[in-house]
């Protein structure tokens, strides 16, 4: 059967830079450890099975610079091992505790095997280097790797300082190239946040394509003839792919999305909250604050008053059924689109990578089954990457997309509102000062310590610009931490700016900052010059 259309699944893997050598342990580092255990290791296992079974899949994975940096950080690698060993010990205790609870015991064993497998893979198979493991799949030609802005800055709210946007993009690209040895073809705009003219910056970095939410394409300067089922050429050769609302709804929707199915594991029932504190205390950071342990025994259960016990085989079967449903709907979609389009459509389905395995425990099973089904010759659908789709050289309509994001309400309001608007004048001020430093020193030589201080000031600015902080402030979760991160990084910038301007740089303090914010080793402050 001739392929009638293409399915492009994009996973965007990102975590903010959390690196605290000044503490023996830090709660927010668990974000990385949980993502490695629940998402990235299962994703790699999935890719290996697909490769071994010679499944002709194509998947696109965006790895953010902050995530890449943390995955290769020796301190965080050693702390992850410590985290895994702690989870293993807890799982062993659970196996013992549930020995006379036959309904829980198999689940406890499941988690023990899961942590044992994670430890084996991380330590023995991958030798702590998950980026190298992902790169093996990129080398096979089946996984397309791309990246995003340096610290995932929300670019439309940073573009009052052109150097801010320019460096978020270029430093992100440089970080990717320094990790993998090549430049990516595509770019993930943080939060799919776009403004007209941004494509010029992407062109400068030789980026071929990026992604937008649905309305970013549909509200373009010219009505797109093929909706989001063909990319738009932004006028300079850089192409914008728009998110398909139908495939998005089936996964993201709180009401009708697959992850809310009653048979799937309930995220919010964890033994870290359900079991006595004195039992859990040795496995939580401060011995007092209850946290998720990753060991969960309940399924979502629908509208039952009490949560039912999780049944892994039933959940696995449901995930496979949902995958078949997803592919069937894509086939129907492509059948419909093919009647109106002169060339094969592309259905672009981007998701946060951390959804698969962490929030949606069965997500990796679903994803693997989707890719296996899409690889079959008899269904008229083929998985592809945006880069491969562009190689077909189908005619492309030219239009300027509309300013947009994939955040709540479709624009910037989630990142600019009463909870977080105070940060922007401060970010703008710091960015302007960074530009002035670079401009004032244009053509002048600086000594080694001045160079280090100027580069560290740029790092502080970038870390303050992370979109994660205003997001968290609006979401109302770890607000104090987000507030502290913004103010700490801006304080470090102010300190360095003051030291540079007064030529009173303290090497010891500077080195301490370099140790704490150990990111972007190739950064060059001169790129902030206008």
């Amino acid at each position, binding site marked *: 059967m001739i392929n009638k259309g293409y399915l492009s699944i994009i996973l965007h893997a990102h975590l903010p830079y959390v690196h605290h050598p000044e503490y023996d342990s830090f709660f927010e580092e668990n974000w990385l450890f949980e993502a490695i255990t629940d998402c990235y290791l299962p994703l790699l296992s999935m890719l290996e099975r697909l490769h071994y079974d010679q499944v002709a899949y194509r998947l696109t994975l965006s790895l953010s610079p902050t995530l890449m940096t943390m995955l290769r950080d020796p301190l965080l690698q050693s702390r992850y091992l410590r985290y895994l060993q702690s989870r293993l010990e807890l799982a062993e205790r659970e196996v013992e505790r549930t020995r006379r609870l036959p309904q829980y015991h198999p689940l406890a064993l499941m988690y023990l095997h899961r942590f044992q497998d994670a430890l084996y893979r991380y330590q023995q198979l991958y030798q702590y280097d998950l980026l190298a493991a992902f790169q093996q799949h990129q080398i096979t030609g089946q996984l397309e790797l791309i990246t995003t802005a340096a610290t995932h800055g929300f670019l439309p709210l940073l573009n009052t300082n052109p150097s801010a946007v320019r460096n978020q993009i270029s430093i992100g690209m440089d970080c990717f190239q320094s990790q993998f040895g090549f430049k990516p073809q595509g770019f993930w705009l943080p939060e799919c946040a776009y403004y007209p003219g941004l494509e010029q910056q992407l062109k400068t970095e030789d980026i071929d394509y990026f992604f937008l939410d649905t309305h970013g394409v549909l509200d373009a300067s010219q009505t797109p003839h093929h909706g989001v089922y063909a990319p738009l050429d932004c006028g300079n050769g850089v192409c914008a792919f728009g998110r398909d609302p139908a495939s998005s709804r089936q996964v993201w929707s709180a009401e009708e999305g697959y992850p809310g199915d009653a048979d799937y594991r309930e995220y919010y029932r964890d033994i870290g909250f359900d079991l006595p504190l004195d039992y859990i205390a040795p496995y939580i950071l401060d011995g007092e604050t209850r946290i998720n342990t990753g060991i969960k025994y309940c399924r979502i259960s629908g509208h039952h008053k009490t949560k039912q016990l999780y049944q892994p085989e039933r959940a696995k079967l449901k995930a496979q059924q949902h995958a078949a449903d997803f592919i069937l709907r894509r086939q129907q979609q492509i059948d419909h689109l093919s009647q109106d389009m002169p060339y094969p459509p592309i259905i672009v389905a981007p998701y946060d990578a951390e959804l698969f395995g962490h929030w949606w425990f069965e997500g990796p099973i679903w994803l693997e089954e989707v890719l296996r089904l899409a690889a079959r010759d008899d269904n008229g659908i083929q998985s592809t990457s945006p880069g491969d789709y562009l190689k077909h050289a189908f005619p492309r309509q030219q239009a300027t997309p509309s300013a947009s994001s994939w955040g709540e309400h479709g624009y910037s309001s989630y990142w600019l509102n009463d909870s977080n608007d105070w940060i922007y004048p401060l970010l*703008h001020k710091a960015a302007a000062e960074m530009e002035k430093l670079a401009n004032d020193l244009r053509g002048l030589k600086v000594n080694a310590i001045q160079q280090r201080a100027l580069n560290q000031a740029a790092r502080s600015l970038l870390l303050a610009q992370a979109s994660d902080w205003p997001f968290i402030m609006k979401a109302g979760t770890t607000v104090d931490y987000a507030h502290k991160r913004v103010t700490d990084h801006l304080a470090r910038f102010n300190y360095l700016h003051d030291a540079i301007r007064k030529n009173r740089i303290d090497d010891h303090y500077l080195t301490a900052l370099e*140790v704490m914010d150990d990111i972007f080793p190739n950064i060059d402050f001169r790129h902030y010059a206008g």
Partner: protein
Amino acid sequence: MVFPPSHSKARILLEAEEIRDISLKINREFAPRRFKPTRHAYATASFAPQELCNISQQISREFAPRIISPVVEKPAELLLLPVDPRHLHVSWQAETPQPQAITNTPSAAAAIQPEPSDPLTLRVFSHPQTTVDANIIDEAPNLWFDVSIAADCFQQQITLPPAADNQPCQYQVALGSLDANQHFIPRCYSNTATTPVVDAPWPAIMIPFIRPQQASPSSSCQPHQPRAHDQ
């Protein structure tokens, strides 16, 4: 050299999964490595955690970012940011002398701002945009409207009137005051910001794949799942 034949007829039995793991492990460990990134030298510098903590806390304490500046040598700055098609956000630093208190929270900052001699006004200028270059604005703006500002605030969300001709619109804001004759005396101008067009008709090809309530772009399906760091 001819190798003698093996007399061993026994074969190790392996599960399929074991064979697969061995194959993958060999692929991984012996695949040619094209690139290995290097680490930065200072990453191995030796600091006790408590010392790092002390340095960090000292810097955060002494160099905390300020929302309100002390006496400034240049005119106040207005920062204009687009929120969505119907809203802008503007913030400013006062140009009048301020107390030396250092703060980084809005409420504390607002509390120390002195009473202005004249009530402040924001004048919002709009320019229908014909180019994508956000830095080009007309000399003579088409429309403007005024927004009164409360005495103790230093930022404001502005609600925009509906765009008349479904075109993107470029805005600029001036901070000033109205004199006795209601003439606007500007003190400073903001950067420009552009709002996108909304409610353009979507192509028919999309109709089967969006729900009726998704007909407006702002209600398209947004990622609702919490982020990994939303805990």
